[in-house]
């Protein structure tokens, strides 16, 4: 089948076809500059403020699903076959305010108003999913939205009041869901998309096999999943990324399979979509997962991208290493499987050959007798990068520690196991003294850096203290050992 050299999507109510799209063009610039839809704002161009929040609806297993995303780092070519909804689409035909907008007005939830369109969009997404949210659910939905004026209090009140003003069943996006599903299906023609602007080129392969083929032909290509890292290379560093090969439109990579030997997560699965299956097997990950980035980023970003990016401060590598996860890499038709910890060779260097891509991640089933924890330490509780991330996985049999996998992020040039600490645990009695001895071994395991997130001294100190937290938590003394959410 020949490839298609244009991208097609629906913007609010309008069909858009673009035959000139650069690899690094962002959705935000397209909206603001090309379409003059200026309601969507730029506050940071790095995914951290939410002023640019729009909804993107896409088909998943035939069903239309809307998510809030950061238009500033969403690459334009990746909205092929999607429905993009901006703030301009929210009010009714006669200009009457949407319930979320009306609630924001009623509760005086805007001051300067610059964050407001983005906040309205996040709250709109929340209201559609969960019209009567708890306070903590609202806070979680707003982890990716900054407001410098209001102190958030009136915004929370508005979020709680919105459902009194209207229910999502009557909402335009829901009323037109079937119609829009049909419109988007019509855009999915199963062809490879290969779109260019000048010398810049973006490719959306037709299938996973096609992806493998494209990458063999273009080993120099930049692979893009959620673009929550790559987007910043563009907006912050003006890096040349063409040709780009997108992958998370591929249903074949968005699958999650649960089998006897564990959970298999496709490389295109977002943080959001992987949450349920992971936390079912590993309940300790629930609180942890909600502290990775904010809602928009979790909807876009993938676990696969987090691994492939190879950052020493990524949150999922230590967790996956501690769980004993592995990954499948594919080049053409060849596949190889690798423990996650072996994937990270050195700072900025992963075991990934040109033309090769990460296809899936395998997380083993939880075993009896294992004790788990995952901790994230950051300056701000939510939407912050870890100063230290720690994951524990200890097997205790008859009061003796028989296996230990403890991995840290933020402590070395790569996500890394605490080998000395692990050794100090194995074969020892499961008690506080053993754990504190192991904690002391961190001095041998790591010599962390001082930077703007934390000093070396703090990183070491807090890492050691986390051994005590782990012990106390496992003991279940009845006394809280962590702050409540």
């Amino acid at each position, binding site marked *: 089948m020949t490839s298609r050299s244009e991208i097609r999507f629906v913007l609010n109510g309008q069909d858009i076809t673009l035959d000139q799209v650069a690899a690094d063009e962002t959705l935000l610039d397209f909206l603001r500059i090309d379409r003059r839809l200026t309601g969507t704002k*730029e506050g940071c161009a790095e995914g951290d403020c939410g002023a640019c929040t729009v909804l993107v609806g896409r088909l998943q297993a035939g069903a239309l699903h809307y998510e809030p995303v950061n238009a500033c780092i969403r690459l334009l070519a990746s909205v092929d076959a999607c429905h993009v909804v901006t703030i301009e689409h929210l009010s009714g035909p006669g200009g009457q305010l949407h319930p979320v907008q009306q609630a924001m007005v009623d509760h005086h939830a805007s001051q*300067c108003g610059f964050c407001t369109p983005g906040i309205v969009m996040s709250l709109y997404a929340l209201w559609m999913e969960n019209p009567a949210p708890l306070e903590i659910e609202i806070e979680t939905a707003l982890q990716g939205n900054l407001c410098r004026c209001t102190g958030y209090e009136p915004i929370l009140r508005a979020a709680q009041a919105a459902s009194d003003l209207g229910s999502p069943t009557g909402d335009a996006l829901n009323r037109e869901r079937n119609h829009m599903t049909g419109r988007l299906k019509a855009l999915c023609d199963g062809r490879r998309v290969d779109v260019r602007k000048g010398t810049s080129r973006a490719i959306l392969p037709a299938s996973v096999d096609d992806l493998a083929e494209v990458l063999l032909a273009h080993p120099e290509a930049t692979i893009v999943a959620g673009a929550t890292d790559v987007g910043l290379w563009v907006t912050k560093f003006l890096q040349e990324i063409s040709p780009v090969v997108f992958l998370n439109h591929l249903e074949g990579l968005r699958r999650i399979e649960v089998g006897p030997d564990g959970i298999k997560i496709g490389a295109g699965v977002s943080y959001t979509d992987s949450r349920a299956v992971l936390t079912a097997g590993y309940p300790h990950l629930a609180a942890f997962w909600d502290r990775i980035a904010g809602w928009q980023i979790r909807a876009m970003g993938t676990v696969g991208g987090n691994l492939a990016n190879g950052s020493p401060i990524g949150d999922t590598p230590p967790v996956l290493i501690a769980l004993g996860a592995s990954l499948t890499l594919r080049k053409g038709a060849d596949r190889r499987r690798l423990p996650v910890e072996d994937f990270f060779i050195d700072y900025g260097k992963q075991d990934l050959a040109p033309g090769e891509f990460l296809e899936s991640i395998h997380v083993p089933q939880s075993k009896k007798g294992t004790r788990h924890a995952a901790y994230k330490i950051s300056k701000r*509780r939510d939407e912050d990068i870890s*100063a230290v991330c720690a994951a524990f996985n200890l097997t205790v049999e008859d009061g003796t520690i028989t296996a230990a996998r403890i991995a840290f992020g933020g402590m070395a040039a790569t996500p890394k196991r605490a080998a000395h600490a692990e050794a100090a645990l194995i074969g020892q009695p499961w008690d506080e003294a053993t754990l504190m001895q192991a904690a002391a071994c961190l001095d041998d395991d790591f010599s962390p850096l001082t930077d703007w997130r*934390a000093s070396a001294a703090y990183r070491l100190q807090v890492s050691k203290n986390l051994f005590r937290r782990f012990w*106390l938590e496992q003991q279940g003394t009845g006394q809280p050992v962590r702050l409540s959410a």
Partner: protein
Amino acid sequence: MNRHDTPQAPGATDPGSGPARARAAAGTRPIKGGVSKDMQHDSAIKHVTGRATYCDDIAEPAGTLHAYLGLSTRAHARIMELDFSAVQRAAGVVGVLTAADIPGVNDVSPTGRNDEPVLAEQKVEFWGQPVFAVVAETRDAARRAARLARITYEDLPHVLEPDVARAQGGPYVTPPLTLKRGTAETELLKAPHRLKGEMRVGGQDHLYLEGHIAFALPGEDDDVTVHSSTQHPTEAQHMVAHVLGVPSNAVTVNVRRMGGGFGGKETQMNLFCAVAAVAAKKWHRPVKIRPDRDDDMSATGKRHDFVIDYEVGFDDAGVICAVKADFTARCGFSSDLSGPVTDRALFHADNAYYYPNVLLNSHPMKTNTVSNTAFRGFGGPQGVMAAERIIEEIAYALGRDTFDIRKANFYGTETRNVTPYHQTVEDNIAPRIVSELEQNADYQSRRQAVLDWNAKGGVIRRGIALTPVKFGISFTATWYNQAGALLHIYTDGSIQLNHGGTEMGQGLNTKVAQVVAEELQVDIDRIKITRTTTEKVPNTSATAASSGSDLNGMAAQDAALQIKERLTDFAAEQWQTDRSNIRFIANAVQIDEETVPFADFIRQAYMARVHLSAAGFYKTPKIHWDRATGKGRPFYYYAYGAACSEVSVDTLTGEYRVERTDILHDVGRSLNPVIDKGQIEGAFVQGMGWLTTEELWWDAQGQLRTHAPSTYKIPLASDRPRIFNVALVRWSENRENTIKRSKAVGEPPFMLGISVFEALSHAVASVAEYQTCPRLDAPATPERVLMAIERLRRG
């Protein structure tokens, strides 16, 4: 003609409601939107629909060019060579601006000290200093090309920290200030107890959601019009004129609204306005400049960081005998507003406490960092931090609750009421507010519960603190305390109002419109406030120092009263009655027994040739300040407040959470309670952010590494207190004759955030049984909290 005949004046339909309905409503119900009413922000609907226009949303005329700054990558260096050959060759580039292209004076120093070049010449003095600007067909092209410049530097030694600068005998950027009353030095020696210490208080980035931006359109002759997001259009106008070398009358600056300012757009926008204007004149095309967030944060000033050395003498009851303190500030490479900012730090180093003998010195140090500037509170918060640290020191030394020490040192009403700058505190309501909050927040029993909880020795500790605020209102530069307004009534009875203040989210336009609605007794919908422009109201002051509604509300009221005066004269004459029989009632004028709807009345006034436009003016009375002697009355009045915060702290990690905050805050007789409450909530959270997670971090080379929200962490929704009770002091009314007896609200509640910091300190102290003052530095990041805990545990 019968005097009741009203010939149709041009354009005479009643706005919004239509004549018939207006007539029905006239006089029968109270007006909508008078003072003291909860009125929504006039742009609220535009905000939530995305239709509010910010500077970057203004449609660009064909041919608009974009400028992008090139910033220095050295903290201090001589510029040896500038090579723009690759820049010039890049796609879309129209040209490069350097200092040599500036037709007038290469300086935007707001205080006339001539120490702040628009574009660096010969040398750069901080990492991030603008050196040149690329002008190109698109912003993207300009931004890309700016990275292609080759600058050769020769490094010079740099100094980043203010205390290091002072120790090295480095220069001040502006003259220091001394405040002195009594004989602190001798009284310190005589005091039963004496303590000294050092505190470091970090700076703060404004992180307004809308960054800096200016958009200049060239006109004929020397003219240029600049749309910008500035808090000080008049100063931007003067600076653009100065830089272009043209008179001020050639330059117009317009501001519809800002996406947040907080002081960060008081002077810092001048540079962007100047660059856009110079480029627009040079190429005769509209030019827009908008830095990205990293450049915005690297190139523009922030709240001043301070190192505070204090010494206090006190008696057994914890009553202060004498205080001596040195305030060493990181001012950056130029003076900007560092003079008045460091002055204000000293003015607030007493907070709400009486110092019988006091000696305060400021040290505004030059450092090789971005030039620090105004930020909500303007140095005041840093001063208050010193006062609260001194209180803590005394409390821990005597083994007492900090709250008791606070109460023991409050200003009195008849005695003990003179400040370090010799102004008498005439309106002290702090003790009453504090004791009401103590009751409302149930302070004493909650404190006991905190102590009991901590006594169990668990991992999670609690802390609680109740702190007061007293904040002086007025610009300390006396001449700034003036304002103008322009009011037009059109023949259809619609009203256009303009004043010198700018709207940055604080609801100023709404409040000023309420004042006019009240004076003229018309519904607020009848009044349109247009953008702020130097064309309508000249020589305005910055919308700063919390003064927006105090000054502009008064000026607008003056304009309304002038017109009302003329209208009353007209009615007395036309209806042949006494002026005392004329009343402005809701949307109508009552003359004797007759009620004339407002629009009809205005039409008649027009036909009778009444001047329906007025320029209002106001200047604040009573204030004076002699900086040389450190004496005077710099403040017209004080605003007060108090906050009680309770926190939980994880003693293994230093992480924390604010469990509850109760606030009682004084805004006098509020012009708009719901807007004032919004200011208080927002200011509190911003103040809390300053002292907790917002950390500015420079590397050894002098590069700021926390220059975007990814690395600089302001509070999120999940950081606000779990329980958050905010109340206005209902009984308060300004003793001075301010607009409707209200008080300023922009800045004072910022300092309520200090209650969180003090509560954290309390929780930390618990690990050493409250025997040691934790001496926490700010911001109290989880790291600083944990390291303080570990320090206290080691003993």
